[in-house]
């Protein structure tokens, strides 16, 4: 990070209009991104609160705080809120909304009004879920498996599924908007293989959102149809099949894992490049691997269903197909590692999150291969091994990527820096807390402790205590950024491009102007064309006091001249 001597532009998207209407009726992609950010932050801490309650209950083998029904509701709400209302919209709807037009040199997304509509639909879905929380919860698990959600449902299943149904439409509209924006609104000269890898990853994510989410919507409607109209779809007594629900649910929900992780993979590509001051090794392979992951994600869902009475032949097919996903995922990890080689690596907060991500994502991915194996899955299915595996992907992967991206683009979004020392401390606390939370779960899962029980055998207590202690540390790690980000909005040092990063978004003012660029940028080179790094960057005497975007230098000489 370098010290900058810059001032905020006189007019930017944050101060161009005032009043609540200027926010709630805005069609500016940047403001909509912030609306999403505030909403998902609320949901993040609500879902995290339920996680802490779960971990507190598991501190001892007996039921100390809650009975079984209450515990069922807590883990269900934890999953529903964090999967559908935080992880799915997290990076695409916040960072994606904010950055895609800036990164491709456009004034806005292709359909700005549709963009605002998607936030309102998300808000309606969230309100349904909050209503469910207020009136007594839902206890089916986040997967809404039949017959829990149909024959034996005695909680607010319909309201919860309606919430998920609504937020699914929000996700579809966001994906559709991004696909059209990336296809039609790229700046002149910005060819596909000049696009930042974050854009590639969001493009792949959008394809999944548009293709898979409707199936989730249909499945949620079918549950309601069966419950209200007694049409036999999932209930054997009516001629239905409960396993059909799992097929339909996982046709969405497995690709949904990639809706959550692919944007993070894109963020990490950006971070690795910016903080090694190098072009990403094997750019084209990393770009295409995002699409490969998106496509493969549609053909592997059956690995969630080996013990569901699914045919073993289908199981064998899904097992083989599941291994395929490891290939493009490994391409990314190997290429990031190769990028680090001989890079000018700096360990600022975003890079700490990125490095943490690589390690955790690798372990999360490799343990996924255990679960893709039919024989081993018999032993590990529905144990804490599975919980640890998917939390490594969803929290160690997706959330780490989101936090890394948030720290990286924070000065771009608000023109101010967060306190770097606190940022590094929080990254460290998150990493330690996360590992302490979830590594013990691999062991207790392997030893046979099943998920979704609030009582357990006494021999598992030590590892459960470690896990609960870790989750408390993790909670502190997540609260710290909330505090210092809010603090930085007023007191943070004014910054423009403290990382000296490349990319069109860094050519715009910080915070960006309402129209992003005063003139249409024309791109003449690929992303990540970093020059040789200046020897000891100490102070950036830069530009952008007037809010005008300035053309970048291609040689790096100009940038070196800025460094005193």
């Amino acid at each position, binding site marked *: 990070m370098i010290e900058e001597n810059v001032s905020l532009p006189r007019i930017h998207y944050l101060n161009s209009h005032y009043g609540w209407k200027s926010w709630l009726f805005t069609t500016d992609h940047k403001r909509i991104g912030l609306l999403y950010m505030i909403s998902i932050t609320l949901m993040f801490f609500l879902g995290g609160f339920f996680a802490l309650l779960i971990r507190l209950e598991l501190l001892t083998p007996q039921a100390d705080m809650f009975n079984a029904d209450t515990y069922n509701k807590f883990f269900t709400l934890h999953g529903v809120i964090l999967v559908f209302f935080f992880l799915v919209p997290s990076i695409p709807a916040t960072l994606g909304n904010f950055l895609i037009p800036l990164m491709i*040199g456009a*004034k806005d997304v292709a359909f700005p009004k549709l963009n605002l509509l998607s936030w309102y639909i998300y808000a309606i879905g969230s309100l349904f879920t909050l209503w469910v929380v207020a009136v007594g919860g839902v206890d089916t698990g986040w997967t809404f498996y039949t017959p829990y959600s149909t024959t034996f449902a005695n909680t607010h299943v319909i309201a919860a599924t309606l919430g998920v149904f609504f937020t699914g439409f929000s996700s579809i509209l966001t994906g559709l908007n991004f696909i059209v924006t990336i*296809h*039609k609104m790229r*700046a*002149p*000269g910005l060819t596909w293989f*000049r696009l930042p890898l974050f854009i590639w990853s969001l493009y792949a994510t959008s394809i999944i959102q548009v*293709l*898979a989410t409707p*199936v989730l919507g249909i499945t949620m409607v079918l549950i309601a149809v069966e419950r209200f109209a007694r049409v036999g779809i999932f209930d054997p007594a009516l001629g239905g099949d409960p*396993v*059909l629900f799992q*097929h*339909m649910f996982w*046709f969405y929900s497995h690709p949904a894992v990639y809706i959550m992780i692919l944007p993070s993979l894109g963020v990490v590509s950006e971070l690795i490049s910016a903080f090694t001051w190098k072009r990403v090794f094997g750019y084209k392979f990393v770009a295409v691997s995002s699409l490969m992951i998106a496509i493969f994600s*549609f*053909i592997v*869902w*059956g690995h969630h269903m080996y013990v569901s*009475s*699914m*045919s*073993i*032949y*289908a199981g064998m*097919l*899904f097992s083989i197909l599941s291994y395929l996903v490891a290939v493009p995922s490994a391409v990314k990890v190997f290429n990031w590692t190769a990028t680090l080689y001989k890079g000018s690596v700096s360990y600022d907060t975003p890079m700490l999150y990125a490095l943490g991500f690589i390690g955790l994502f690798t372990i999360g991915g490799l343990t996924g291969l255990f679960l893709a194996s039919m024989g081993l899955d018999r032993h590990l299915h529905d144990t804490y091994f599975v919980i640890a595996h998917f939390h490594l992907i969803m929290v160690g992967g997706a959330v780490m990527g989101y936090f890394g991206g948030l720290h990286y683009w924070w000065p771009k979004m608000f023109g101010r820096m967060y306190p770097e020392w606190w940022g590094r401390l929080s990254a460290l606390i998150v990493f330690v807390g996360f590992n302490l939370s979830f590594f013990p779960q691999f062991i207790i899962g392997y030893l046979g402790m099943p998920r979704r029980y609030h009582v357990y055998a006494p021999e598992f207590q030590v590892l459960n205590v470690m896990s609960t202690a870790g989750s408390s540390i993790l909670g502190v790690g997540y609260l710290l950024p909330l505090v210092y980000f809010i603090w930085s909005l007023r007191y943070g040092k004014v910054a423009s491009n403290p990382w000296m990063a*490349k*990319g*069109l978004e860094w*050519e715009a003012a910080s915070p960006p102007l309402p*129209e992003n*660029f005063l*003139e*249409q*940028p*024309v*791109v*003449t*080179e*690929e*992303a990540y*064309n970093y020059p040789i790094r200046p020897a000891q960057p100490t102070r950036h005497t830069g530009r952008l006091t007037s809010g005008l975007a300035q*053309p*970048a*230098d*291609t040689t790096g000489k100009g940038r070196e001249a800025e460094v005193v």
Partner: protein
Amino acid sequence: MAHETTPHNEHLANGQGHAHHSISPATCLLVFAALVIGTVATVWTASMDLGVLNTPVALSIAVAKATLIILYFMHVLYSKWLTRMVVIGSFFFLIVLFGLTFADYLTREKTPEIPSLYSSDPILKQQ
């Protein structure tokens, strides 16, 4: 990423618009007539017992009608390659959903019976 600058509106004027192809009334009527015939055929075949062909015949008529609507009324026949690719891609993933789901349903009956652990192991059998 280096860039030069051009006025914004100049870029927006280039390649952002697209022409709409209009279908002649005669074509519309022909497609409409085909759809009506298809609907009559659906009702007619539903009243007949075609044995194992019941479902394939009904689905074939439905697919034919859907194809006409997609090609003509949704203008896919006159659209750019990208739009066509989106439509084909969507159907591809629908086939994936059905195909892999049926990989389960069509092979469930063929699953071999797993011999009981107790019946095959003499020590366990004694216990």
